[in-house]
C-alpha cells in the first residue's frame, strides 16, 4: 500500500494535504527524513573520537541472584563540551552519578548486559523505558545461576558463559569481553573496547535550557531532555557483518558506513518509517527495525542484539577507522547509538552460524508455524474493486489452470477506510463472497490498519474514545493525525488491556461480514501519519504509563501485529493458526506472522535487492517474508514480471501486489507465452510446497530461516560470504536470480564441498567454481545439492487445499558416495494439534542403493496422532549410474520398474533421470526400497 490515493475522501483539508503530498510523489525525498546530522543525538555521538570521553570504571562487583552486578562509576573529569549539548559540561550531577550494571548468562551461549540509571539517586520522576513483551516469557527459566566469579587480579572479573566460553568484565576502563575460555582466550565479542560508551542520564531542566528540537515544520518538545546511549561493539574473527534489517541494499553484507575508503555516508538507521518509493540501495530506515547483528568469519560466527525500540543508528566501521596506520584485520567494529531507553543487550557466542541463529531465537522466539495455505501463492492488488471483480479474478485463475490460495482486499473494500466495515455498494455480500472462495479451498485477506477514522458514528472510534484507548499527544489529548481516512487516531497497543480489546474486534460476531476463511493484513503500522514528522507519529506523543513515543516507536507495529494475531487466535478458539501480514516489524515479529518488504518498485534493481533484503530478514529471525512480486509502484515490463514470478516463487512469502495506479497484471494478461511462464513459476512453488512446509517446521523449531544465504550452509567457503545474488532454500536447493533485462548468461558460483544438479536438465556441476551458464526465459537457474532428497507434489490443483491427498515425488540427488538424505514434515496444515504430536516427520536416507524412510518424530511429543493416505508415486534419482531396471519395496516385497524419466512433468522436459515408477509406498509408514 502506498501513500497516495486517487480519490481523496470527503474533507477539503485532505485535498490540500493531498496536493502537498503530490508534490512529493516523484520519488523518495531525502528532505522529508532526518539525516544523522539533523538528529542531534546521532550527530553528537558520531562526532566523538575513540577514547575521548572520560571513562566509566567498575566498582562493587558482586554476585547477586545468580548474576553479576556492579556499579559503573564515571571518572571525575568534566564531560567534554559539545556544540549541541553544552549543558552537559557545566558540572551537572548527571555526569557524576553512577550507573547500575548487571550481567546474566543464559543457556546455550548467551550473555545479557543491562545498564540503567540508579533509581535511588534519580533527580527526576521519569524512569527510562524498558521494552516489555519482546523477550520470550520463558527466557528467565533458561538463566544459568552463576555461583562463582574469578578475578584477573583487580583489573577484571570473569565468569562462566558456556562450555568453552567465558564472560569478562574489565574494570577500568569498563569493558565487556566475550572470549574463548582458557589462558589467552581468543576474544569473540567486546563492548566499549574503543571507549565510545556514553550514557546521557536524565536530569532536571535548567531555567535557561531549551530542549526542543525542530525538524521541518515540526517541533519535538522533548520534555525529558537528552537521554541517548551509545557504545562500540567489536566482532572478532569476523570478515563481514549482516542483519539489522530493514534496509534496502544490493549487498548481502553490511557495507562500512565510516572510515577509510568510505565516502560520506549515513549510519544504518533503524527507525520504522513509511517511505514513499524507497531507494533500492540506502542505509536509511524503512518499515522495520531489528537491532540484531551477526558477524561471520572462517573461524567463528557471533551475534549482538540490543533490545531497544527508540531510534537507533548504527555505524559499521571500515578497517583503520580508529587508526589508519594499523587497520584492524579479522575484526569488524561497529558503533551503536540510540535516542533513549536502556542498555539491554545480548551477546551470542556461536560459534557456528546456525548456533547464533538458535541463540537469538531462544531470546526472541522462532517463526510461528504458518497454515499450509499461507505458504502457497497469494494474489493481491490495490484494489480488487468489488465482488464481481473478485469473482472474475478467481475465475481467471481457474480458466488458465493457475493455482492460487489467497485473494486480498486492500483499503478500498472498507466503507470510507473504516476498517472492519465493508463498502456495501461494492461488497454487498462479503460472507457469500468468502464462502464461494472457500468452496474452492481458497482464502481471503482483508486489510486492517491502525489509524482509526475519527468519525463519531464509527463504533470503533466511539468505543476507543470513550475508553480512552488512543495514544495521546504531548498535551494529553487524543493524538489526531492524517492517514487514509483523513483525521485518525491510533490505539495504544502498548497497553495489554487495549490489545485484548482490539483482539476481540476480530471475532466473527464483531467483525461483521467476516468468515473463518478470512485472514488479516496490517499495513501502515510504523505507524504512518501523513502529516507527522517524517510521516510518522511525533516522538513526544504519550503511551500508557507516560511512555513517550520516542521510546517505543520501533515496536508500535510489533504490538499492533501481536494484537491482531491474538485476535485471530481467539477467533478460532486457539485452534486455528493466525495469518497476519505486517509491514512494520521489530525483533520478535516472527512470532506473529508474515512480513513483506513494503512498497517496492517495478524495476530490475528492486528485483535484485529483494534477495539480500529477505536474506537479512531471515537471519534476523523473520523467516516468513517476501517482496511484492511485480513491484508495487509502476508497471513492470513483461520480462521483468516473468522474472519476478520466477524468483518470487522461491520467496518464503509469495505474493503478487500492485499499486492502484498501475495496469492490471493478473498472470494471464500478457499473452499466452508469458501466461505459460508465470504458470510454470507458480507451479514450481506448488510442487515444492511439501519441502517449504518442512522448512517452515524447521524454522518454527530452530529459528533457522527458510531462505538462507549460502554461507549459512557453507560457512568455510569465503566466496559465499557476500553473495547476495544466489540463495539457498533450506540446505538443498540453490537458486540464482536473473536481475537484468535480456540477460543471456549468468555467472553462478556454486559453493565448495558439494556437487550440484541443474534442476532443468539434471546436469551435474562441481562446487567451489563459478559456472557461466546460458540463461533462457523459461526459468531462473536452480540446483539441487548432491546428497539431498527433496519431497515434492507434482500434481497441480486449484489451490494447496486440494493437494492434501495427492501423492509425493521424491527427488534424490546423490553425492560422490552415492548417498543422500532429506526430510518431510506433514501435519493438518491448520491447527495446533502438532503441538500435541499430531504430525508426521520422516527422514529419507539413501545409501548402499537402498532408500529407507524412518520416523524421526520423537515419541514423547504428545498423544495426538496425524495420519494421511498419501503415497509416493515417483522417485527421481540423480547421479545413480544407469543400468538399474527394477526396485523392490519392503515390506510387501513388491517389484517396481525403473526407467528414464523427466525432472518435471512439464511438456518437453527431457528424460534425463532414473525414475522409480509407482513405488506407491505410504508416507506414514516405515519402508525401504532396494535398487536391483
Amino acid at each position, binding site marked *: 500500500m502506498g501513500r*497516495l490515493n*486517487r480519490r481523496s475522501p470527503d474533507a477539503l483539508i485532505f485535498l490540500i494535504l493531498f496536493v502537498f503530498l*503530490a508534490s512529493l*510523489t516523484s520519488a523518495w525525498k531525502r528532505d522529508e527524513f532526518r539525516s544523522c546530522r539533523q538528529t542531534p543525538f546521532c550527530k553528537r555521538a558520531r562526532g566523538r573520537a575513540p577514547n575521548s570521553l572520560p571513562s566509566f570504571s567498575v566498582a562493587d562487583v558482586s554476585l547477586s541472584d545468580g548474576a553479576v552486578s556492579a556499579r559503573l562509576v564515571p571518572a571525575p573529569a568534566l564531560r567534554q563540551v559539545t556544540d549541541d549539548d553544552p549543558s552537559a559540561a557545566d558540572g551537572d550531577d548527571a555526569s557524576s552519578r553512577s550507573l547500575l550494571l548487571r550481567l546474566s548468562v543464559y543457556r546455550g551461549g548467551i550473555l545479557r548486559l543491562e545498564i540503567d540509571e540508579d533509581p535511588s539517586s534519580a533527580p527526576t520522576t521519569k524512569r527510562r523505558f524498558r521494552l516489555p513483551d519482546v523477550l520470550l516469557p520463558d527466557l528467565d527459566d533458561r538463566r544459568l545461576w552463576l555461583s562463582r566469579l574469578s578475578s584477573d587480579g583487580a583489573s577484571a572479573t570473569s565468569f562462566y558463559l558456556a562450555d568453552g566460553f567465558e564472560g569478562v568484565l574489565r574494570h577500568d576502563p569498563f569493558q565487556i569481553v566475550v572470549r574463548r575460555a582458557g589462558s589467552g582466550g581468543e576474544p569473540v565479542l567486546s563492548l566499549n573496547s574503543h571507549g565510545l560508551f556514553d550514557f546521557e542520564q536524565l536530569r532536571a531542566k535548567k531555567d535557561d535550557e531549551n530542549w526542543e528540537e525542530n525538524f521541518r515544520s515540526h517541533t519535538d518538545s522533548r520534555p525529558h531532555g537528552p537521554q541517548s546511549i551509545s557504545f562500540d561493539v567489536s566482532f572478532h574473527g569476523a570478515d563481514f557483518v549482516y542483519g539489522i534489517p530493514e534496509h534496502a541494499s544490493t549487498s548481502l553484507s553490511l557495507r562500512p558506513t565510516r572510515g577509510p575508503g568510505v565516502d560520506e555516508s549515513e549510519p544504518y538507521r533503524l527507525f520504522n518509517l513509511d517511505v514513499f518509493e524507497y531507494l533500492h540501495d540506502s542505509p536509511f530506515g524503512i518499515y522495520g527495525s531489528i537491532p540484531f547483528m551477526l558477524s561471520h568469519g572462517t573461524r567463528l560466527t557471533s551475534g549482538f542484539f540490543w533490545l531497544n525500540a527508540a531510534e537507533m543508528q548504527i555505524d559499521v566501521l571500515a578497517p583503520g577507522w580508529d587508526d589508519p596506520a594499523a587497520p584492524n584485520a579479522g575484526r569488524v567494529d561497529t558503533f551503536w547509538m540510540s535516542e533513549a531507553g536502556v542498555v539491554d543487550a545480548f551477546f551470542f557466542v556461536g560459534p557456528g552460524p546456525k548456533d547464533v541463529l538458535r541463540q537469538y531465537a531462544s531470546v526472541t522466539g522462532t517463526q510461528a508455524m504458518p497454515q499450509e495455505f499461507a505458504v502457497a501463492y497469494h494474489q493481491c492488488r490495490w484494489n480488487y*474493486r468489488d465482488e464481481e*471483480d473478485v469473482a472474475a479474478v478467481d475465475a481467471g485463475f481457474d480458466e488458465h*489452470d493457475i*493455482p492460487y490460495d489467497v485473494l486480498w482486499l486492500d483499503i478500498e473494500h472498507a466503507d470510507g477506510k473504516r476498517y472492519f466495515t465493508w463498502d456495501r455498494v461494492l461488497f454487498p455480500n462479503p460472507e457469500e463472497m468468502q464462502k464461494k472462495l472457500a*468452496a*474452492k*479451498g481458497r482464502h481471503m485477506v482483508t486489510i486492517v490498519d491502525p489509524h482509526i477514522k475519527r468519525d463519531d458514528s464509527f463504533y470503533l472510534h466511539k468505543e476507543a474514545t470513550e475508553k480512552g484507548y488512543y495514544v495521546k499527544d504531548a498535551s494529553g489529548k487524543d493524538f489526531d493525525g492524517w492517514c487514509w481516512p483523513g483525521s485518525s487516531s491510533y490505539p495504544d497497543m502498548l497497553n495489554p488491556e487495549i490489545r485484548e480489546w482490539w483482539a476481540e474486534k476480530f471475532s466473527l460476531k464483531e467483525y461483521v461480514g467476516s468468515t473463518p476463511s478470512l485472514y488479516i493484513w496490517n499495513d501502515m503500522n510504523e505507524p504512518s501519519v501523513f502529516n507527522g514528522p517524517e510521516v510518522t507519529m511525533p516522538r513526544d506523543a504519550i503511551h500508557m504509563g507516560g511512555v513517550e513515543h520516542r521510546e517505543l516507536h520501533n515496536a508500535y507495529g510489533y504490538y499492533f501485529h501481536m494484537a491482531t494475531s491474538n485476535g485471530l487466535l481467539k477467533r478460532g478458539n486457539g485452534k486455528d493458526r493466525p495469518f497476519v501480514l505486517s509491514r512494520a516489524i521489530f525483533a520478535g515479529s516472527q512470532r506473529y506472522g508474515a512480513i513483506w518488504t513494503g512498497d517496492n518498485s517495478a524495476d530490475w534493481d528492486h528485483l535484485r535487492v529483494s534477495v539480500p533484503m529477505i536474506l537479512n530478514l531471515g537471519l534476523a529471525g523473520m523467516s516468513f517474508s517476501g517482496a511484492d512480486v511485480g513491484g508495487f509502484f509502476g*508497471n513492470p515490463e513483461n520480462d521483468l514480471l516473468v522474472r519476478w514470478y520466477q524468483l518470487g516463487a522461491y520467496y518464503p512469502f509469495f505474493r503478487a501486489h500492485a499499486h*492502484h*495506479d*498501475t*495496469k*492490471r497484471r493478473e498472470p494471464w494478461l500478457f499473452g499466452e507465452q508469458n501466461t505459460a511462464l508465470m504458470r510454470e513459476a507458480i*507451479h514450481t512453488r506448488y510442487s515444492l510446497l511439501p519441502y517449504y512446509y518442512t522448512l517452515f517446521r524447521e524454522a518454527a523449531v530452530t529459528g533457522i530461516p527458510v531462505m538462507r544465504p549460502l554461507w549459512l550452509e557453507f560457512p568455510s567457503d569465503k566466496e559465499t560470504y557476500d553473495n547476495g545474488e544466489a540463495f539457498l532454500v533450506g540446505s538443498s536447493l540453490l537458486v540464482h536470480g536473473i536481475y537484468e533485462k535480456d540477460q543471456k548468461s549468468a555467472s553462478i558460483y556454486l559453493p565448495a564441498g558439494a556437487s550440484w544438479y541443474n534442476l532443468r536438465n539434471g546436469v551435474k556441476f562441481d562446487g567451489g567454481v563459478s559456472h557461466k551458464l546460458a540463461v533462457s526465459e523459461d526459468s531462473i537457474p536452480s540446483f539441487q545439492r548432491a546428497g539431498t532428497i527433496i519431497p515434492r507434489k*507434482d*500434481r*497441480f*490443483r*486449484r489451490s494447496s487445499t*486440494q493437494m*492434501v*491427498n*495427492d501423492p509425493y515425488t521424491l527427488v534424490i540427488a546423490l553425492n560422490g558416495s552415492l548417498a543422500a538424505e532429506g526430510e518431510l514434515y506433514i501435519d*493438518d*496444515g*491448520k491447527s495446533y494439534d502438532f503441538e500435541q504430536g499430531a504430525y508426521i516427520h520422516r527422514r529419507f536416507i539413501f545409501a548402499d542403493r537402498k532408500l529407507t524412510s524412518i520416523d524421526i518424530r520423537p515419541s514423547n511429543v504428545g498423544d495426538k*496422532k*496425524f*495420519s*494421511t*493416505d498419501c*503415497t509416493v*508415486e*515417483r522417485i527421481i534419482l540423480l547421479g545413480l549410474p544407469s543400468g538399474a531396471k527394477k526396485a523392490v519395496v519392503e515390506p*510387501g516385497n*513388491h517389484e517396481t520398474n525403473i526407467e528414464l524419466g*523427466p525432472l518435471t*512433468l*512439464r*511438456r*518437453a*522436459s527431457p528424460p534425463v533421470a532414473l525414475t522409480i*515408477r*509407482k513405488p*506407491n*509406498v*505410504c508416507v*506414514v*509408514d516405515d519402508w525401504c526400497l532396494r535398487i536391483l
Partner: protein
Amino acid sequence: MRTHLLLPVYLAISCLCLSWISGLASLPPRELLGIAPEDENFYKSDVIKCKDGSKKFTKQQLNDDFCDCQDGTDEPGTSACPEGKFFCRNAGHIPQMIYSSRVNDGICDCCDGSDEYKGNVNCPNTCWEAGKAVCEKLKKKIATHQDGLIIRKREVEKAKQAFAKDEEELSKLKSEEKILKGLVDKLREHKEQIEKAEEEERLRKEEEKKQKDAERQSTEQNKSLEESPLDHSEGIHDTLLEKTSQLDKMDIGHESVDQLEKEYNSGIDLPADHTVGQVVDDHHDFIRSDHGSDDTNDELPSGHSTDQHVYEDKTTTNAGPNYETGAKEIDSDHAAEMEKGSESADDLTPSGSSSWVDKIQQTIQNILQAFNFFKSPVDISEASRIKKEYNDANSKLSKLRSRISSLAEKLKHDFGKDKEFYSFYDRCFENKQNKYVYKVCPFKKASQVEDHSTTQLGNWEKFDESYRVMQFSNGDRCWNGPDRSLKVRLRCGVKDELADVDEPSRCEYVAILSTPILCLEDKLKELQQKLEDLNKSQPSKHDEL
C-alpha cells in the same frame, strides 16, 4: 485435513478398476475414463503413442495414475499428468474437456459428476437441469442472431451503397475541384490584371490631378476659369452605363451561383449517409476541423477541359443510379431528411440538365469573355464584378476542398470486410452509469461526461480481434497514471446498444456494444449446431418433460 484410515497402498490402484458410483453417473471402465468418444479408437491398440510423439505406452499404463506422457495422453482419466485433459460426457448437457487438475479434487466440475469418481465428494448429476437452462439460453441467443442477421444484411447493403456513393461523390468532387480551380485561377489572373490596371489608372489620375492642380494654379494665376472638367466626367458616365447593361445580361448566371451555393451548403449539412439511431451531430466539428487542410489540393493541374471530360464519363455511368437506389431504401422515419439530402445531391450530380459546375463555368466564361472585350480605362463595375466572382468562386473552392478532405478522411478508414461498419462513422452511442454519461463515437473518439466536464477516454485507434473489438487510445492522461483508453467489445444484438462500461484497471475502460453487425451467419450455424447436439444428447423423454 481429514484423517483417513490408511488403505493398503496397493489396493489404491485396483480401486480405480472398481466401478464407482457417484451421483447418477456410472463410471466408465478405466480404459475409457476421461476419453472423448472421437478419441476412443486412438486408445484401442495395445501399444499407444503419446500424442506429442515423445514415447509409447502400453494399455496397462493407460489411466494407471502415473504420468508417462508429459502431454497427458496416457492419463486422460486421472490427475497424474498436469498437462492432461479429462473429458466429461455430461449427457443432457454439453460435453466438456476439463483440466486434469480438476479430477478427484473434491470439487464437482462436470455436471454429470464424472470428474469425482473417487468419491471424495458426492456430486449429483445436474446435467438435465443445467442442459435445459443452457438450451433456453441458446435458443434465445439463436433468435437474437437470426433477427440480428436480417438487420445486418440490410445494414450491410445500405453501408455498401453509402460507401460507393461517397466514393463516387469524392471522385466527382475532386474533378469539380479541378475545374473550379482552373476558373479561380483565371479569375485571379483577371482580377490581378484589373487591379494592375486600376493601380495604373490611379497613378495616372494622380498624375493628372497634379497636372491639373498645377494647371489650375497657373489658370488661377491667369484668372482664366472657362474650362470645365466635363470631358472627363462624361467618360466615367459612359462606363457606368455600359456596366449596367452588362449587369442586366448576366443576372441569370449570378443568381444561379448564389442559389447553387446555398444548395451546396445544405448538402454538406445533411450528409446522405445519415441513418437510424441516436445520431449525434458532429458535423460542424468536422467541418471546422477540416478547414486546416484546405491547401492539400492546391497543386492540382489546371487543364480543366480534359478533366471535365473524364468526370462526365464517370458520373454518367456510376453514381446517379446508385445513389437513387440508396435513397429509396432509407427508413421512412428519415425520409424527410433524406429528401433534402437527395435534392441537393440531385443538383450536385450531373444526371439532370447540367451540373452546378457547368453553370458556374458558363457564368464565369461569360464574364471573362465580356471582360476580355473591355479595354482600359478600367470599368469600375466590371472590375468589381470580376472581383466578386473571384471571391465567390474562391470560397466555393475552399468549401469544396473541405468537403473533399472530410470525405477522404472518412473513406480511408477500415470499415470491415463488407464495409459493414460504415454507418458507424457518423454515429455515437451513449450509456449512462450513475453520474457519468459515456459517449462512444466509432472512428472518432470516446468520452466520459460528468455534468459539464468531459474527459476524453481515447481517440479511435482501430478494430481488434477481427472486428470484435473497437480500440480507443491516447485519451486524457490520468494523474500519476497512464493515458486513458477504452476497449469496446462488440457482440450480437438486435439493437445498437452501449452497455456495461467498466474500469477494471485504472484508466483502462471497457464497454460492450451490442449491434446486429456482429450477428454472423457462421456463429448462428455454430449455435444451431450446439443446440442440435444438446438436443441429441437429451433423450426424448426429457424433451417431453
